[in-house]
């Protein structure tokens, strides 16, 4: 196939045969793509000892005596001979490489050798410098000079409507309002456009627009990825990004805080939150994974992401070997690796966060000002309650003395232990579709046979004659159960959602009993036993059966002790309704009749001890015995002290709950001790070879003076003025955003394989200016959009298509399809449905049924239910992002899955996009809401309304042809909907928001279709 570089070299942009060769422009891309693989930096791959990326080596005689390059004498140069030979054995590159040289490339090489075979360092590895041509410089002077060279003229400025729409979408991602367009069109002041640009740069939506791309770089998502792909919460980091762009945080600071904010002196909460950048990678939690393998993967991800995001280098290649094209060695890769190797995160996600969602340590809690204040007030309240409890406690000795006589009586009467119930029936409610429950020698029941999704065990027993105050459930491991654990799910876990107790008197109906409290000796995080009391939680009691296999006990204390006539039955119902297949595997049920306050999970051990103390006369009790008695009394016996304590505890619990509800975010945290790093053979975690320490690639400048040798130093190095890449990378991507392509088209890679920039001096000038401005991001954006180059109209002529098909020279304004997020945001904004709230947790807009559930039964991100109300209408960047089943419409519109750093999206045009824009609920509802606006705001005649709608959506006035086509369509559908009012009603009721009932349904439906036409126009989803 034809390679990218071949096309570039032969394109009209660089074909200036008569000119002297420029190595970096004409020769390096060619040598890099076709020769360096075997004759480049990678020593292991190098053939015949010939190295062509360094002039000295290329000029040395080979073992055979032949010299690859003899400057000025192509006829004596083996390189030239090998390129031109017709001998298949000698031909270079060998035909099996599949990268033959074209005639033109051969001619270029020959000319280059004839001209002296001058080399240049790779342009992107040399610090950018100010242009040598006389100033003053501006984007436009560079562009017009180059156009003149090609015999081209810039295009005239676009009309104001087009211009304000272009700038609004580029800077805020939202279309201008009709009023904004009007105001701009009517503004006679010479700086009318600049005022618009300044307003847009001050808009809080500017930060959102800028952050969108950064989320792709940062592989941001709301899930961990991999098998379970449960939820995480990193949105406080996303808020930080939006805020930073809005505050115009200089790019160097923006960088330092994200790479190493935690290491800054006296790091603020915000600076720590910023380091979430490098925790946004996926975290694996699959059963049986080897922790170190995935810790290493995460660190490699960080190196690669840093490489792509800041340096536009494919450092990932050096994971396994020296780079094939760039002078970066495998050792240097692992030196970079060691900067990120000293954080305390484990590398895998385990336990409840893996299943039920949550962040993996280290995390930091984030709280806004109002919440902080509220928490402080609660704390004061607790302090006061504790004070009161302390006062009440003064009466302790007196209260115990009052309680003792009755206590001794009660405890003497109390039976000693939990007694196993003697059931008459233990079966699954699902009969032969449920578990077979068989009695074991220890009185427990073991489940076997079918394991349905949600089994319920029925346990019927005569009510013990002493009555019942509580039930004890013991769950036991068994070798026959999965994982030899306690539950029947394949990992050995269970989730008990309900423990229902009924009593049934002879001839009567079962009467449900209320549980006063529950307790368990162990609960899985997020599946506490108390969940059983809250039926609505949708959860239950689980015990980490996949990793812990010890017997577990849970106690269910009844509100009222049960005493009933003879032959009364106690009916217990164990229900498992949380997650499919999580049924208990083996269990035993016992009852107690002792006073509830004396009941303990472990039976009567404590009770016996207390009884023994009570039997000792008060005066003879030891200090230890007194203390034990006090402890028992305080914990179990109702008194003024207990009530005061309970109140304080309840308040404390409320505070703890509030604190637990605060969002946290995963951050970077350096360990005090460095972890050893090694070169990993073939990049495999279990094949360490030579030990390495932190260091930077030799081809790039060293650490700036005074910077520490750690992550903070690395961050400072990235944005030091001597670093040749970072500023170029950022301005080149900014250029790409506004003009469709970077000045160097390969914005993802500025290494040796990069395109030679179409305007290298302009790229350098922008980079130098950017640094000189103090990395001022808003200034850079303004500089670009204020240029005349940006403001040109985008009309294409056949001549221009022929001369410059991709518009690299910019003899016209750029025209390209909007990013997926913007397509949806724009429809919401135009229809008036958009809820423009900025920041916060992710939301759940409409999503077709089954997207999460058709491919997974793992993790907590299942059973998607869309939000109601504002969550449906927030900007797309806030849509919850599950990596293994990403928002489907976004994937159709070229979004990456966010599983890893992506710095460039493709821009395609497909039938599936058409279907989404025509039929997806959001777009149909938006069309209806837009139609409503058109009818209500657009005047009374169809002509006026059509013109209004067209103007609203495209910012421009329709011409006579467009009006005619739209009007004919409207009339046609008006007739159709009038004939079929049911269809009209159905259409206008799409979506959650309701149509205005005062509008005629058929008319609204007809306008809805017209609005849909407008939203589907090429010029609507294109920014031109």
């Amino acid at each position: 196939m034809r390679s990218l570089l071949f096309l570039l070299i032969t394109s009209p942009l660089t074909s200036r045969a008569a000119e002297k060769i420029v190595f970096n422009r004409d020769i390096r891309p060619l040598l890099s793509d076709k020769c360096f693989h075997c004759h480049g930096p990678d020593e292991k791959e190098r053939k015949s000892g010939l190295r062509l990326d360094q002039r000295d080596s290329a000029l040395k005689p080979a073992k055979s005596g032949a010299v690859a390059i003899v400057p000025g004498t192509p006829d004596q140069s083996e390189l030239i001979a090998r390129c031109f030979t017709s001998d298949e054995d000698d031909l270079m590159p060998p035909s099996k490489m599949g990268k033959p040289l074209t005639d033109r490339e051969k001619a270029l090489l020959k000319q280059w050798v004839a001209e002296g075979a001058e080399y240049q360092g790779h342009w992107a590895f040399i610090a950018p410098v100010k242009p040598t041509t006389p100033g003053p410089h501006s984007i436009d002077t560079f562009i017009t000079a180059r156009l003149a060279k090609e015999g081209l003229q810039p295009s005239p400025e676009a009309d104001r409507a087009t211009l304000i729409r272009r700038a609004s979408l580029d800077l805020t991602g939202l279309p201008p309002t009709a009023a904004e367009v009007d105001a701009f069109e009517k503004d006679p002041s010479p700086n009318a456009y600049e005022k618009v640009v300044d307003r847009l740069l001050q808009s809080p939506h500017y930060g959102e627009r800028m952050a969108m791309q950064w989320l792709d770089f940062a592989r941001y998502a709301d899930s961990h990825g991999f098998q379970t792909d449960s939820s995480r919460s990193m949105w406080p980091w996303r808020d930080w990004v939006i805020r930073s762009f809005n505050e115009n945080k200089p790019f160097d600071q923006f960088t330092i805080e994200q790479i190493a904010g935690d290491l800054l002196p006296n790091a603020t909460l915000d600076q720590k939150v910023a380091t979430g950048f490098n925790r946004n990678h996926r975290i694996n939690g699959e059963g049986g994974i080897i922790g170190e393998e995935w810790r290493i993967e995460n660190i490699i991800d960080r190196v690669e992401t840093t490489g792509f995001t800041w340096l536009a280098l494919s450092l990932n290649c050096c994971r396994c070997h020296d780079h094939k094209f760039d002078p970066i060695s495998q050792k240097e890769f692992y030196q970079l690796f060691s900067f990120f190797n000293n954080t305390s995160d484990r590398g895998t996600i385990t336990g409840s966060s893996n299943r039920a969602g949550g962040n993996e340590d280290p995390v930091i809690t984030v709280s806004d000002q109002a919440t902080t204040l509220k928490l402080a007030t609660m704390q004061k309240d607790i302090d006061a309650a504790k004070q009161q409890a302390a006062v009440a406690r003064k009466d302790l000795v007196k209260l115990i003395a009052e309680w003792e006589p009755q206590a001794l009586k009660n405890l003497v009467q109390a039976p000693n232990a939990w007694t196993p119930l003697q059931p008459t029936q233990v079966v699954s409610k699902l009969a032969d579709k449920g578990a077979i429950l068989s009695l074991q020698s220890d009185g427990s029941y073991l489940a076997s046979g079918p394991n349905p999704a949600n089994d319920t065990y029925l346990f019927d027993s005569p009510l013990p004659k002493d009555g019942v105050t509580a039930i004890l459930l013991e769950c036991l491991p068994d070798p026959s159960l999965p994982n030899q654990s306690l539950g029947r799910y394949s990992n050995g876990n269970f989730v008990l959602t309900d423990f229902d107790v009924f009593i049934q008197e002879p001839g009567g109906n079962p009467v449900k009993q209320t549980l006063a409290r529950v307790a368990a000796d162990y609960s899985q995080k997020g599946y506490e036993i108390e969940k059983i009391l809250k039926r609505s939680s949708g959860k239950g009691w689980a015990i980490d059966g996949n990793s812990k296999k010890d017997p577990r006990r849970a106690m269910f204390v009844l509100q009222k002790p049960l005493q009933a006539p003879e032959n009364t039955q106690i009916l217990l119902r164990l229900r498992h309704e949380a997650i499919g297949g999580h049924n208990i595997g083996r269990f035993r049920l016992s009852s107690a009749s002792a006073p509830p306050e004396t009941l303990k999970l472990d039976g009567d051990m404590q009770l016996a001890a207390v009884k023994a103390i009570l039997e000792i006369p008060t005066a003879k009790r030891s200090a230890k015995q007194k203390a034990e008695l006090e402890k028992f009394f305080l914990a179990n016996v109702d008194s003024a002290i207990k009530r005061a304590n309970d109140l304080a505890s309840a308040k404390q619990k409320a505070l703890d709950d509030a604190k637990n509800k605060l969002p946290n975010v995963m951050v970077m945290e350096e360990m005090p001790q460095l972890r050893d790093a090694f070169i990993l053979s073939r990049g495999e975690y279990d094949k360490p070879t030579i030990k390495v320490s932190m260091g930077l690639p030799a081809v790039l400048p060293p650490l700036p003076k005074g910077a520490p040798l750690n992550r903070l130093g690395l961050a400072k190095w990235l944005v030091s003025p001597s670093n040749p890449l970072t500023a170029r990378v950022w301005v080149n991507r900014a250029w790409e955003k506004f003009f469709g392509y970077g000045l160097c088209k390969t914005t993802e890679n500025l290494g040796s394989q990069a395109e030679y920039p179409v305007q290298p001096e302009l790229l350098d000038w922008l980079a130098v200016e950017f640094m000189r401005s103090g990395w001022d991001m808003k200034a850079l954006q303004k500089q670009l959009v204020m240029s005349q180059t940006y403001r040109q109209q985008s009309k294409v002529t056949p001549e221009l298509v022929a001369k410059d098909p991709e518009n690299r020279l910019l003899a016209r304004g750029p025209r390209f399809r909007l990013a997926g997020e913007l397509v949806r945001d724009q429809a919401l904004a135009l229809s008036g449905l958009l809820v423009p709230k900025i920041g916060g947790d992710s939301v759940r807009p409409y999503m077709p049924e089954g997207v999460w559930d058709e491919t997974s039964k793992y993790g907590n991100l299942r059973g998607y239910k869309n939000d109601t109300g504002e969550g449906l209408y927030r900007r797309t960047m806030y849509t919850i992002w599950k990596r293994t089943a990403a928002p489907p419409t976004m994937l159709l519109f070229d979004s990456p899955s966010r599983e890893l750093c992506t710095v460039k999206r493709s821009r395609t045009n497909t039938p599936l996009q058409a279907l989404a824009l025509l039929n997806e609920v959001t777009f149909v509802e938006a069309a209806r809401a837009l139609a409503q606006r058109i009818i209500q705001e657009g005047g009374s005649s169809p002509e006026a309304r059509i013109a209004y709608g067209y103007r609203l959506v495209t910012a421009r006035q329709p011409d006579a042809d467009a009006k005619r086509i739209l009007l004919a369509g409207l009339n046609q559908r008006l007739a159709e909907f009038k004939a079929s009012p049911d269809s009209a009603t159905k259409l206008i009721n799409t979506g959650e928001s309701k149509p205005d009932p005062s509008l005629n349904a058929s008319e609204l439906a007809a306008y809805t279709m017209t609005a849909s036409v407008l939203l589907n126009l090429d010029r609507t989803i294109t920014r031109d």
Partner: protein
Amino acid sequence: MTSSTLQLQDRLNRRAFLKHSGLALGSTALASQLAASPTHFAPKAKRIIYLFQSGAPSQMDLFDPKPQMEKHRGEDLPASIRLGQRLTGMTSGQKTFPVAPSMFKFAQHGQGGAWISELMPNISKIADELCFIRSMHTEAINHDPAITFCQTGSQLAGRPSIGSWLSYGLGSANRDLPAYVVLTSFGTGRREDQPLYVRLWSSGFLPTQHQGVKFRNVGDPVLYLSDPAGVDRGMRRGMLDELSALNQHDHQLFGDPEITARVAQYEMAFRMQASVPDLTDTSKEPQHVLDAYGPEVKTPGTYAANCLLARRLAERDVRFIQLFHMGWDHHGGLPNAIKGQCHDTDQPTAALIKDLKQRGLLDDTLIVWGGEFGRTIYSQGTLTETNYGRDHHPRCFTVFMAGAGVKKGTTYGETDDYCYNITRDPVHVHDLNATILHLLGINHERLTFPFQGRDYRLTDIHGSLVKGVIA
């Protein structure tokens, strides 16, 4: 307009106007020279149906019998066999690794004498159509990286899937349907088994139009296929005509060829609104055909229903049809679970192959059946007379192929007595993928895409053709 002229026109458009970002040069990579054939050499297969068995089926219970293991029942796996190879965290802590012979009976079938377990009675009957590779091996030991490796040639996310490579390399052979369709089903052997991920059919760094289109089991088979309530086909047609007229009008004003490309995409969308329901409507299939696929064929989203759909997709010249059947990850209770999986897949798989053959489609359709790795001979958890589990085993597993270009009625490769190590003719996942591409007329070393400064391919820098399985 025929499909080939469509493709040709597409290429011409692309060449004339290299839009679609710097990455998307030419929608069909191999065709960029406007050669008469879009392939490197004459293809044996025009299309492929890849029946992916997700979760990793147990090779020694299905296709690689080890009767001699009965003598060693319960014995610890010898160190001379294990050779210190790594185990997953699920069994690395086990005190012993008791050998668990398969409970299932094997017999030889067909003239080729292929050994097949009693669990697969229908597959057994078509043994002579099949080519078993018992010596597959892979690098990953956990599901996510392993299945990603099979699909993309890399354990980590980000590379294009095999179907996307084929879409990119060969383009679509039809004008109304996507080139790459994915169908998924849950297994009844283990209902809550390993999940699937969109990355498995993602186009990675290839342009997005090459991503697999996953047909959905609920609602519209293709996302957003149905018009909104209240809009009928006539109205949609009228609306699209209006949209097209406006876009053409804008094309005259702006001259951007992308506008006409968009008009064409809307037309394709309209055609899909008819062609997809026509495809998924199996009500006119004769009863004997439905019966052949088994009773579940009538339940959408089952493997059986998907097999029938696969045949209908093949008839309509969809290039890459991929089924994923979940539920093969049997760490415990394997005998029971595998019965469920085989019940799901045995009859429909055999019916699909026979159905294709009867229609003459097997001659130019390649079938591949297999999972992401194999399973251990030793039992995970307690071994009893009637129960055992098996952990992940990347060192060997079995896949089978059928159809175009495949050496039928043969078994390739061998494993040791413990079904633990390969003793003859190892086939790496890259080798299998190279062979699949070869059968479709593609040299795997030459189907490349430049990304981040490097020419990437499905087989990375590896892969050799498995000549022994090619007819």
